[in-house]
């Protein structure tokens, strides 16, 4: 009974933390509670969530993807450079860039048997060079009229709700369905929980893993596109400083770094927590730079809380 209530608490803790944080910030500044502000805050969180949503899958299989910020930057460059030339087709092109980068990370990590954080770090180096190559190392502006024609799905609003939120929620639903309803989702959990067992039951673990990394790259690509649409430009350093918050919102949401446990909605809640913490710090007057310190410690603390220590005997 005690055990059960404890796991139940762990399930709902992130949500409780989010509500408490929102109340705290709201007490500090009443305008925070206005519907417009709430929507704006949520919309601002969506790029972070999109980036983190794919990484969640990778963390659930017990790996890590450190290449997402480079991938998002690269796709923003692809979008900005090719939108004037190819029109709407620049969007799938940019997504494909993310798919390839994610696949490369997965392939290197599984087939070449390189630990994922080094494999994805190495891939991110290549991806960064690619981003620089696409944009010729410059920041590329997306002309306003092109943005009007092709990117309103990301930056406009519909029924009074910013489209970022629609996009974010759509991917939340799709990825949750993939994770919750498909065999792939079950295998992702299985690999995270006990990779050898899944292997022994005759399943091609590498293929599932590569699929997870590919999804991670894809989502980073989508995040890069939405980011570029919001900012009206693409640049090879656009998504820098996003990696740490992205991993933070996954573990803060309650997904364990040791794999097996987690879900996309947790990352959604985690992203909102990270955003509210950031807003709260700005209210109190913590500088943007010092916020990195706080995120560094939040990350370490959240990992410490959520990690399943029974599973790893030797911690490297």
């Amino acid at each position: 009974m005690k055990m059960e209530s404890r796991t139940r608490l762990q399930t709902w803790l992130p949500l409780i933390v989010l509500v408490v944080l929102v109340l705290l910030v709201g007490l500090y500044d009443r305008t925070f509670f206005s519907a417009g502000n709430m929507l704006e805050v949520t919309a601002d969180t969506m790029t972070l969530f999109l980036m983190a949503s794919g990484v969640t899958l990778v963390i659930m299989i017990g790996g890590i993807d450190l290449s997402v910020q480079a991938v998002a930057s690269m796709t923003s460059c692809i979008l900005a450079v090719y939108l004037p030339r190819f029109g709407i087709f620049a969007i799938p092109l940019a997504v494909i860039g993310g798919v390839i980068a994610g696949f490369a990370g997965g392939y290197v990590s599984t087939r070449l048997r390189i630990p994922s954080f080094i494999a994805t770090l190495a891939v991110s180096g290549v991806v960064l060079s690619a981003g620089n190559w696409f944009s010729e190392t410059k920041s590329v502006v997306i002309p306003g009229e092109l943005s009007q024609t092709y990117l309103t799905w990301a930056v406009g609003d519909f029924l009074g709700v910013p489209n970022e939120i629609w996009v974010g929620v759509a991917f939340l639903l799709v990825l949750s369905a993939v994770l919750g309803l498909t065999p792939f989702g079950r295998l992702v959990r299985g690999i995270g929980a006990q990779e050898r067992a899944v292997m022994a039951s005759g399943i091609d673990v590498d293929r599932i893993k590569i699929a997870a990394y590919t999804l991670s790259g894809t989502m980073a690509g989508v995040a890069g596109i939405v980011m570029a649409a919001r900012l009206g430009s693409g640049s090879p350093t656009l998504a820098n400083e996003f990696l740490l918050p992205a991993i933070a919102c996954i573990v803060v949401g309650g997904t364990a770094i040791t794999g097996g446990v987690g879900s996309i909605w947790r990352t959604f809640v985690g992203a909102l927590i990270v955003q509210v913490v950031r807003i709260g710090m700005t209210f109190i007057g913590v500088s943007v730079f010092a916020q990195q310190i706080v995120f560094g410690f939040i990350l370490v603390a959240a990992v410490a809380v959520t990690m399943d220590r029974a599973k790893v005997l030797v911690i490297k």
Partner: protein
Amino acid sequence: MYQMFLGGALRVKAAALAGGAWSKQWRRWAPVAVLVGLCIIIGLFNPNFFGGANFVRMLNTAAIPLVICMGVTFVILMGSIDLSAEGVIAICAVAASMLVANDFTGIAIGLFSVPAAILIGSLVGLLNGFIHVKFRIPSFMTTLGMGFAGIGLATAILGGVMVRISDSSFRDYLSLGRVFDIPAAVYIAGVAVIVAYVIQERTRIGRWVYAIGTDEATARNAGIPVDRTRIIVFGIAGAFYGLAGALSAAQIGRGHALISQDRLFTAITAIVVGGTALSGGVGSVLNSVIGVFIVIVLTNGMVLMGIEPYVQKGVQGLLIIAAVALALDRSRLDVVK
């Protein structure tokens, strides 16, 4: 003589020469072969590569990466990873530049700022190790968080500005001054390599690092104080980052939070290209020296051949993948996370 020295250092055993050990032997010497091959190829493309001035330039570029690698190598030999190098270097560089004569603080303790930076670095390193071991958090997470926190701290201290160093003797002694036409930084890096080599070969910590990296459970059963060794090794790594921070500040004459940008990536590339296995237990600080020169020669060669600088990171990334894939002893791994 040179061969004997390097041979002994890279752990070549005469017995290993016999029979089926050929591939193992090749793996051991591959980094040296790669370095020599690279030099020859680049030299063929551009004879200026072999000029004395270019050689000194490469040595000077290699100095700071060498110091950083001496630290990271020990951590990797244990099978862990340290992703905090950039953050720690940033803190130490900012601290060092604030402790010598500068335009930000009134303090001017001259060269004493170097031990101060090393001390700060090792304290942050010990904190890394402590959090990693006591709270049982994987090292890549601990150090990732600490690295970001470090860069944040360095930026927050300065509020986004730079510290200008006005103490010219600090810069001369640490970096710019030349003896026999070779910059001081190179000598300091040389001393750092020797210190690291002595730690590796002549201290218990050095031996234990190999034991832990090879098989931690066995090491524990054999009575090695694994937890304490881990914390100390992270502290040693931090000390090297501290020195690297002071060197960086002296080299450019300023202290700021982004002083160490891309250093980590280069260091890890150099270490794995040098033949130290990420799984731990295999490698040496001398492998990392070879690795650093491979990366530096390659970078230098790309510049000489007129390849855009932004391509370097991509090439480094491919190098990591190729080196690890070639050197990996697949029989030892079943589950790769």
